């Protein structure tokens, strides 16, 4: 059956198949792993190599200076730098989860490099490590544990927040045989735990205690903890491989090796087996059955992954992993499982007539009907197969899709997907998205696996890593185009890619003039809607490119982001214009205060005077809080009337001041303020009215002040002219009232109203009558009538009603005192039917209004409901 050649490359470990396809031929030249210290990052990450200073090596045609070189997994050089760090020998080197290269030297200095071989940070493990050299270290994804000459153990539990802690002292007298670490995320306490192979047992060291475990199982020569921290593989002094749980409670399996020599490398391959590497032999041991042996004639390095182990040699990179079930079901020799039959069917189908193939592509479902109508002799062989598996077709399709995902070989992926797609055509209820989804994933994987990029992720690693982390890694490696394409392809947010690109571009483009760099940047930034131009501009500014920053910030649509940035790069005037345009007064204030603080007053005044909104906001603020400064502003802009209004207003503030009790000398300053205001008003031609009013006000205050002195009553100041006149009349001081009247040229009309009302107030009806007879009142007798009616003096009112000349007025006056008949008479005398009707209505309404509601209420007040 199918796939004989495929399965031939598998090895069987008990009942499981393993394979190790070659991922890359290494592209590097003259790299000898034995001469170098090498650190390989998981998830297909980069490889760092530096000449091993712990070994004596022969120098060929190379500098004596050591170089730290960083390669992709395909052996392409990413970056290199000369290693010049002091601190003695390089003890440990490893990649963190964030793909930061951590290097630890003898003196306990920890150096952080990015993948561009740029030193980005360093810190010291502390005095004890500085004084007594670090001799060994063990890393995990986000931390490291070191041991120094004095057997002190130190841990950095979080490399993102690098701080060394000293672990509990365990009184060692010698270096332990081996060290292993259980990461904090897998321990009960949440703190790092260190396992030391000491004597015939293991010490578990924590920050606050030491525990003895597994007495008698050792001495252990090598230990390695599985990826999830649950299992420990170890190699004993007598050549046994022991796999046990990390709490040493039970031994899961044991295998006796041919040699008691501890292996150079010990590693977990996924969760199922353990690899041991000696000089030229790689041994894969599982819980059951005979181990698998591989022979290598060149040195190798084992790189554990979540689903297998990558094997790096001088010339190639391989990936050793278990063959997935779906692949087995298709390619296992002699398999008659549905998936294998489907794969086979495609093979037959491919070899049949071109016509059928054409039809197949034309329309899958129609094809099915077409084939059904063929006579059986014409039936393609593939169809026979399909008939066999009809019931489990969808399962077979699924297996083919799944198997395609595990393939590194692109043509193999294609064949498997075609088989799936072929089967799917005959399978009505199959989820069509599965194939599409897998194609998408594989396109991404194939793109990053390409040797130019060199990230050989398996599908499982990819799913564990997540697409967004992959994108970040591509960005960090400056593979922007690919990152952008992938984000676009997967429908992810492109902002992060574009943003990072823009930042790198700006940093790297010192030689490019602002205008051309702006064009380059804009061309890309526009790809991403809603990207923060302000952030890019801010970065340009930090790189000393203020002009470019100004040009960029122009494109920022969010005023609230744009304006603070404009201010920080000294573009205040632009900021002010933008703030005003935005309509957000808060932003205008922000700019305003900034300029206010920065510029001399006069210049500040000039700036805001030209912009009405800025000016108005300033005036509003200053009116509330910086009164004096506001005067300066008005004076500088020649708005004398506004200064005058301010002074006038101040005079009232003085009056409100509780200290200024009425009639006090404070009137002096008040009057002075008002006079000053009057003067200012008169200097402008348009404010004659205000000027006169201020003059009168000052005069009034003086008169009122005098009145208070003479009458000894503090009731005049700050009342109006009319009130002053009324008060005088009420007090019987008619002469002063008259004086005030003439002083302020009060009209006869107003005078009559005031005096009539004042007399009515004190109910001096005789005086009122006398006043009415002084001369013919200029506004007639209506005020007299009104005053009496208001005071409810009908008799008095009647005296004047008869004197009303206009019969209409008379009619209404009668009406007001309830004399309906007289009212009606007067109205008819006026020959005004409309008025008559209206009066009748008023009477009716007045009477009715109350009676209506009374009756309404009566009707409703039954049975206690109200």
């Amino acid at each position: 059956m199918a796939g004989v050649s495929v399965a031939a490359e598998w090895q069987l470990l008990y009942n499981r198949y393993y394979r190790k396809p070659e991922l890359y031929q290494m592209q590097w030249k003259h790299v000898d792993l034995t001469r170098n210290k090498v650190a390989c990052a998981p998830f297909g990450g980069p490889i760092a190599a530096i000449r091993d200073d712990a070994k004596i090596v022969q120098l060929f045609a190379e500098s004596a200076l050591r170089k730290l070189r960083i390669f992709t997994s395909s052996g392409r050089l990413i970056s290199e730098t000369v290693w010049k760090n002091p601190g003695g020998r390089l003890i440990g080197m490893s990649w963190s989860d964030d793909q930061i290269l951590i290097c630890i030297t003898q003196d306990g200095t920890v150096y952080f490099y990015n993948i561009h071989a740029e030193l980005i940070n360093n810190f010291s493990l502390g005095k004890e490590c500085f004084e007594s050299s670090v001799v060994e270290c063990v890393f995990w994804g986000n931390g490291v544990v070191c041991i120094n000459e004095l057997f002190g153990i130190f841990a950095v539990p979080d490399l993102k927040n690098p701080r060394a802690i000293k672990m509990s002292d365990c009184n060692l007298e010698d270096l332990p045989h081996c060290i292993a670490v259980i990461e904090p995320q897998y321990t009960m306490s949440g703190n790092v735990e260190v396992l030391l192979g000491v004597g015939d047992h293991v010490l578990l060291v924590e920050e606050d205690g030491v525990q003895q475990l597994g007495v008698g199982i050792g001495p252990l020569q090598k230990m390695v903890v599985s990826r999830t921290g649950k299992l420990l593989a170890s190699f004993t002094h007598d050549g046994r491989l022991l796999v046990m749980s990390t709490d040493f409670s039970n031994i899961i399996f044991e295998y006796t090796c041919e040699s008691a020599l501890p292996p150079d490398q010990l590693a977990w391959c996924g969760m199922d087996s353990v690899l041991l590497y000696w000089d030229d032999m790689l041994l894969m041991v599982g819980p059951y059955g005979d181990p698998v042996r591989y022979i290598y004639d060149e040195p190798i390095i084992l790189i554990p992954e979540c689903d297998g182990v990558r094997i790096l040699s001088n010339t190639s990179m391989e990936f050793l992993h278990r063959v997935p079930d779906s692949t087995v079901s298709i390619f296992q020799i002699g398999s008659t499982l549905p998936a294998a039959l489907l794969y086979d069917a495609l093979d037959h189908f491919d070899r049949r007539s071109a016509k059928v193939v054409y039809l197949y592509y034309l329309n899958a479902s129609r094809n099915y009907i077409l084939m059904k109508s063929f006579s059986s002799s014409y039936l393609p062989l593939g169809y026979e197969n399909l008939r066999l598996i009809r019931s489990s077709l969808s399962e077979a399709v699924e297996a083919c899709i799944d198997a395609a995902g595990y393939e590194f070989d692109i043509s193999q992926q294609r064949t498997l997907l075609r088989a799936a797609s072929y089967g799917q055509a005959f399978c009505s209820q199959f989820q069509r998205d599965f194939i599409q989804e897998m194609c998408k994933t594989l396109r991404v994987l194939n793109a990053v696996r390409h040797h130019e990029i060199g990230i050989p992720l398996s599908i499982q690693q990819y799913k564990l890593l997540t697409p967004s982390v992959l994108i970040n890694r591509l960005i960090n490696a400056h593979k922007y185009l690919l990152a952008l394409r992938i984000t676009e392809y997967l429908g992810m947010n492109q902002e992060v890619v574009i943003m990072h690109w823009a930042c790198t571009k700006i940093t790297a483009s010192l030689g490019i003039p602002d205008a051309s760099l702006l064009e380059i940047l804009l061309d890309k930034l526009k790809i991403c809607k809603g990207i923060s131009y302000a952030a890019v501009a801010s970065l340009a500014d930090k790189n000393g490119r203020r002009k470019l920053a100004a040009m960029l910030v122009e494109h920022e649509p969010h005023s609230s982001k744009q304006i603070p940035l404009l201010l920080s790069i000294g573009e205040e005037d632009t900021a002010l214009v933008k703030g005003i345009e935005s309509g957000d007064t808060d932003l205008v204030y922000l700019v305003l205060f900034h300029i206010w603080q920065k510029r001399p007053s006069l210049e500040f005044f000039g700036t805001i005077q030209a912009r009405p909104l800025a000016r108005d906001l300033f005036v509003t603020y200053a009116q509330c809080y910086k009164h004096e400064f506001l005067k300066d502003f008005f004076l500088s802009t020649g708005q004398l009337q506004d200064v005058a209004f301010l002074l006038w207003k101040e005079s009232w503030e003085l009056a409100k001041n509780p200290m200024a009790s009425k009639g006090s000398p404070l009137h002096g300053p008040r009057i002075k303020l008002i006079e000053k205001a009057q003067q200012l008003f008169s200097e402008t031609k348009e404010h004659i009215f205000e000027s006169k009013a201020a003059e009168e006000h000052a005069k009034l205050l003086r008169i009122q002040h005098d009145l208070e002195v003479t009458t000894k009553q503090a009731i005049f100041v700050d009342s109006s002219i009319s009130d002053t006149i009324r008060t005088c009349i009420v007090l019987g001081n008619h002469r002063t009232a008259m004086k005030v009247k003439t002083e302020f040229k009060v009209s006869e009309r107003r005078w009559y109203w005031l005096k009539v009302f004042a007399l009515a107030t004190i109910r001096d009806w005789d005086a009122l009558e006398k006043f009415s007879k002084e001369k013919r009142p200029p506004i007639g007798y209506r005020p007299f009538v009104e005053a009496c009616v208001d005071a409810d003096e009908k008799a008095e009112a009647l005296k004047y009603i008869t004197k009303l000349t206009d019969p209409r007025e008379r009619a209404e006056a009668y009406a007001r005192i309830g004399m309906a008949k007289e009212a009606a008479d007067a109205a008819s005398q006026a020959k005004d039917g409309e008025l008559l009707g209206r009066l009748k209505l008023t009477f009716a309404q007045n009477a009715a209004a109350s009676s209506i509601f009374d009756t309404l209420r009566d009707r409703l007040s039954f049975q206690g409901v109200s």
Partner: protein
Amino acid sequence: MAQKQINILKNIRGKKCLVIDPKLSGSLSLIVQSSQLKEHGAELRHLTTEPVETDCTKMVYLVRAQLNLMKFICSQIHNDTLKGLQKEYFLYFVPRRAVACEKILEDEKVHEMLIIGEYPLYLIPLDEDVLSFELDLAHKECVVNGDTTSLWHIAKSIHKLEFSFGTIPNVRAKGKASTRVADILNRMQAEEPVTSDMGIPEINTLILLDREVDMVTPMCSQLTYEGLLDEFLGVNNGAVELDSSIMGVQQEGKKLKVPLNSSDKLFKEIRDMNFEVVVQVLRQKATSMKQDYTEISTTTQSVSELKDFVKKLNSLPEMTRHINLAQHLSTFTSKPSFLGRLDMEQTLVEAQSYDVCFEYIEEMIHKQEPLINVLRLLVLFSITNSGLPKKNFDYLRRELLHSYGFEHIATLNNLEKAGLFRKQDSKSNWLTVKRALQLVVEDTDTTNPNDISYVFSGYAPLSIRLVQHAIRSGWRPIEEILKLLPGPHSETKKSGFASSPSFDTIPGSLNNLEKVADGRRSLVLVVFIGGVTFAEISALRFLSSQEGMAYDIIVGTTKIVNGHTLIETFVE
């Protein structure tokens, strides 16, 4: 929103003193009950110039972002510091932090003592169809001080609405502030697009109108039931406060709060009617009830008839409430002074007897009638005449200062800046506007109205006439008239809704596109910048209820106003 306020209190542990901006407390009471606040250990105070006496060591200020309030807070904190009191201070700005306010706090060196937060309350629903931005001073700040902070606030509120109802495709604005709001809204939409796949937006059209465009209407006395209640008793946050004796409750001198909103079925029925008609309606209802009662007590009734009767009895408290209120109102409306005033308003609006009006107002000043009443008519007089001839202008100003005091120079200055009382500089075009828009309608039937003019017994509010046109056909047909009114106008239509109806949809053609998915009518949001009166809202409800109207109308306003409250903002 209520939850947000509770959370603010919850997050501050222990006993605390909540000091609220008095202007806020009314509107907040519509959202959170004060008992709820007490549950969370909060002692409630109003922010004034006076220091707050309390044992609490945690002070929580909840204030609008107003400059003068900052001074109060600063002086209170200074006061505590002087006394050596150590307290924790929290300051929450409504609706958001403001640079200018924080600058004062910084200058007064209290900024660092405060923990500052935001309470993003941008609008308050006053009723089913009325939203308020609660910006009392918006109009004055814009037209007198040139401070357009409120415009941003309004645009922001509308933009926030768009996040729930979709981008509003049609925007029509009239007036300087309105066109600016439309402009800011546009910018906001560009900055923060409303990403929606809601299909057809629920709000079809936004009409923005400056109060400045029509200052005539609020100066006239409202004659609808709710309008009159506001004119005479003052409706605040959906309630009137009056002596309990008026409501027939015998509790000496005690004030009673009567809620007025559409959850009161009877009120919902009569609030928009002309008051004359309200009296008739109440009488009819009472009569029919009386009749039912006599029948019940004299003849034998079936159980279902009894049930119906009892159901009607349930509405009795509402009946009593409105009869009491209406009776109270009628004591004002029957006064000759009120009738005289209505007469004068009519004469002013007709604008054909200058001298009569002039003398009437002059006499009011001489009689020293309440300043605001005088100013209301004076503003009406000035607007309908495009200002007064210089001689009259100066004369009346002088008489005002003489009668009410020189401090009112500031008030006059404000009114002049706002264009409400000013010198005549051109021929008045009020008559043209009045005629073209048919503002004065003869023979208005208030009982069965067929036009919005019923709300002022014969005067159709200019603002609502404009809205009427804007809904029906957009601005284009009345552009010539719009040019005679203050401020520019604008009209925009968002593309992107390929299927949205065009401006020129024939009124009443309720085509499918205007219906929101579940069959409701789509909405028109009418926003009044500078305030709206109850009478105008009534007129809009009337329009909305007309046969052939394709939309439901929602009203947005900076504040519910009347002539009195509006003029008050200008008085210093």
